[in-house]
């Protein structure tokens, strides 16, 4: 439903308050939560005004802002309340008089409408072609800052982003107190009119990348935007690649680390997910916590993640290739053990593994959607009943169950969920190749994957860097995590930063 709201009235605020009232009624027909609240003020209450707002978006107890403003007005400017007239009001507000409740002056009708829509209280005065907009009363219930469930850490900050753009930007600002940290904001989306902000560290970010990004983000103005992924799809290079070309995080510290590396972060009102672009393949193996632990431990974990990556990608296909094409490569004792378990299984190895992987994905998907209380029941059913029963019913051999479970666990060991699922997608074509061609098929699969990875770009940056093109200095943060002394003193970075 992408329907542009059609406006046929001129985009001005009428001097006649009843005209404005009509316009608003017309614009918000059938919006039952809109409150239009007319009132009078001044000598003998003869001056008319009305305020308009969505009562679902404002805090009722805060609605006294006008009275407070008026009271300020009275004491500062004009004397007793009965004597306030329109001229006083206009003079006071257009010269930015200070009151306890700050108001913004709205000059066009469209702007007034959009202020109402974003939860402000807008006040129209009879005889004034401008309106006042109060944002203080805005109150939509928001989640507190909590630990992000997808990226919990043992050590390090436990703060996660929330669904409000302003608070998220605030979380970032407190961690990066530097005037070079730029945050540009605009409204995008055809119907949703979502607030979008993108930030970068001036002097560190690559100018070309930033220009490219600004060019592409313009495309976001058309479609509706509900989540950060909507932005990603608009700006990414290859929509059909299984590989994610941008990173996501809900952790402010991760976003700051990315900014310091010259990335651009995109925040969207209404979601806590921060988009980090451009994304490189090797970055998907990094976690902010790596830098909070000791070097040796972090490097060890990095290596484990990389092993996990290859396990998740190729373990099933290696098993298929070995058992159906190259039984001579299996050590004899292991082969005998596998033979014992495979005997009596009616399916070829490929089908057997495909069935088990299907079971696994099914259980995983079911576990995500179900409420937490039932979710544990699913895992019990899955692990105990289906796993055990599949073996007893001779549908799968224990070796295959172990293998599929190991593959699943390995894919969960990769910190970024987006790449974990993409690996699970890629393992299936690899399995098919290895079922057709054996080890040779795996080789072809790897070559195709490598061709794809090396030709992929993210915002114009080569996706496989720093491996290809080779950047020796940055390699120190790929397979291992070098000490911060080395990583931060990199002269290239220092020169680039210029801060």
């Amino acid at each position, binding site marked *: 439903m992408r329907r542009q709201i059609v406006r046929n009235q001129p985009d001005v605020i009428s001097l006649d308050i009843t005209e404005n009232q009509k316009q608003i009624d017309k614009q918000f027909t059938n919006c039952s939560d809109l409150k239009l609240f007319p009132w009078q003020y001044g000598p003998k209450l003869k001056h008319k005004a009305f305020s308009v707002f969505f009562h679902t978006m404002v805090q009722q107890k805060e609605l006294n802002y006008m009275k407070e403003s008026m009271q300020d007005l009275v004491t500062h400017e004009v004397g007793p309340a009965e004597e306030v007239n329109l001229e006083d009001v206009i003079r006071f507000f257009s010269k930015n008089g200070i009151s306890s409740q700050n108001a913004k002056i709205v000059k066009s009708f469209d702007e007034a409408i959009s202020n109402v829509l974003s939860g402000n209280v807008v006040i129209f005065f009879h005889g004034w072609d401008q309106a006042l907009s109060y944002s203080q009363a805005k109150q939509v219930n928001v989640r507190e800052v909590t630990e992000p469930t997808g990226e919990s850490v043992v050590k390090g900050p436990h703060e996660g982003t929330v669904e409000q753009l302003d608070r998220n930007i605030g979380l970032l600002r407190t961690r990066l107190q530097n005037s070079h940290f730029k945050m540009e904001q605009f409204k995008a989306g055809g119907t949703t009119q979502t607030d979008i902000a993108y930030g970068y560290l001036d002097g560190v970010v690559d100018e070309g990348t930033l220009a490219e990004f600004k060019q592409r983000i313009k495309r976001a103005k058309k479609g509706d935007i509900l989540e950060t992924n909507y932005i990603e799809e608009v700006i990414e290079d290859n929509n059909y690649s299984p590989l994610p070309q941008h990173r996501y995080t809900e952790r402010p510290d991760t976003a700051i680390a990315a900014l310091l590396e010259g990335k651009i972060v995109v925040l969207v009102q209404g979601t806590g997910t921060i988009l980090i672009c451009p994304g490189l393949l090797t970055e998907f193996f990094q976690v902010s916590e790596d830098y909070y632990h000791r070097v040796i431990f972090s490097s060890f974990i990095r290596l484990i993640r990389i092993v996990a990556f290859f396990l998740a990608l190729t373990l099933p296909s290696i098993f298929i290739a070995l058992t*159906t094409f190259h*039984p001579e490569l299996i050590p004899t004792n292991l*082969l005998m053990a*596998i033979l*014992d378990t495979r005997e009596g299984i009616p399916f070829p190895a490929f089908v057997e593994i495909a069935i088990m992987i299907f079971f696994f994905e099914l259980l995983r998907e079911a576990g995500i959607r179900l409420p937490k209380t039932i979710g544990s029941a699913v895992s019990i059913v899955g692990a105990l009943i289906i796993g055990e029963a599949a*073996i007893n019913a001779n549908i799968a051999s*224990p070796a295959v169950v172990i293998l599929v479970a190991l593959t699943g666990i390995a894919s969960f060991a990769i910190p970024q969920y987006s790449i974990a699922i993409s690996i699970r997608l890629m393992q299936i074509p690899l399995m098919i190749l290895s079922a057709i*061609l054996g080890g*040779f098929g795996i080789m*072809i699969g790897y070559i195709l994957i490598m061709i794809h990875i090396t030709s992929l770009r993210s915002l114009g940056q080569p996706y496989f860097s720093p491996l290809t093109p080779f950047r020796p200095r940055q390699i120190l943060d790929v397979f291992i995590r070098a000490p911060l002394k080395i990583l931060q003193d990199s002269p290239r970075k220092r020169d680039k930063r210029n801060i």
Partner: protein
Amino acid sequence: MKRWLTIAILLFLTGCWSSKELVEYGFVMGISIDQTENEEIEFHAQIYSPAETIGGTSGGETPFYTNINSKGKSVFDSARNIPVYLGRKAQWSHMRVVLIGEDFAKKHNIGDVLEFFYRDHETRLMSYVLITNRKAADYWEMKPFIERTISQELRTILDSSANFTGKSKKSMLLNVAMDLKSKSKTTLIPYIKKTDNDSLAPVANGAAVVQEGKMVDYLDAADFEKIIMLKNEYKGGIINFPCMDKENDKLQETIEVAALETNLSPQFNQESLSIDITTKIDGFLGELQCSTVTTADEVEKLEKHIAKNIQDDMNQVIHYLQENELDVLGIADKLYQQKPQLWKKHEAEWGKMLAESEVDLEVEVKVESTGMAGGEKVVEE
């Protein structure tokens, strides 16, 4: 379009369509070759028979193997006949052992029957070749003690005795072929026998000497051990020697060999051949029955005593080999490599030349330590 075509060609024009599930194969664990009365080849194969495991419990007392036998003119013929009996295609790559009956080995060229295993693409040259006392097929009747099949057990017997006792060696199909193809045309193949006639336990005991494809002689375990030392293939084991003092010469003491290095350098002259051999042995004392080694002098004395013992034994073996003109040590190859012209000249009467050669053998023993106890008997009388 071009890209997809390339991918399709990569995938489908490769000719690797040999996919077979594990359950379609019968994995050959070992074969045996004997001769029948009417000069045919009696071929036995031991196939691994998986015990179907359901829910982790294996099914009862059924053995892990099936034995199949067939008779034919050639090994390949018999091998190709396996599916007729088994219903599954034979898979050769995990063959553990090849057993050859003694009678067969004495009358036929081993190389001829093994030809199939060298030529076929599925077999591997890692299988061990063994020559059996009496009929090879009888060994398939034995029940393994620890391993799942007797084939596997025979292989581990060879492995362990080569690594820890030094009384046997791992003779793979590859080694046999290389030795028989070399200039000396002689190889040693481990010999197994049953411990006694009724026993069902095989034991690796000595070696069969195979010359020009046929078994010509048998060497017992002690001689075999010395030859392994001379060939510098000794992995580890213990050496017995009698007590130093004459009164107790019935008692034996032992030294455990930690490292053994033999340097064999033949000197080729126009008409004669002399061979210099030096063997260096490092070891720990394993058992002391009568000697006392508490001073450096005593150690040196003991070392000399051990060296002399080994030297005597080795000389005996070398004499025996010379008498029977057996070039087990592969001296012919050294000559061929170093002086091919000379080799051509002597090729015809090589055996005689070997028999007349002068051998200069020197053994050095170094006792590194006396083990966990001192240089005396632990319990005094």
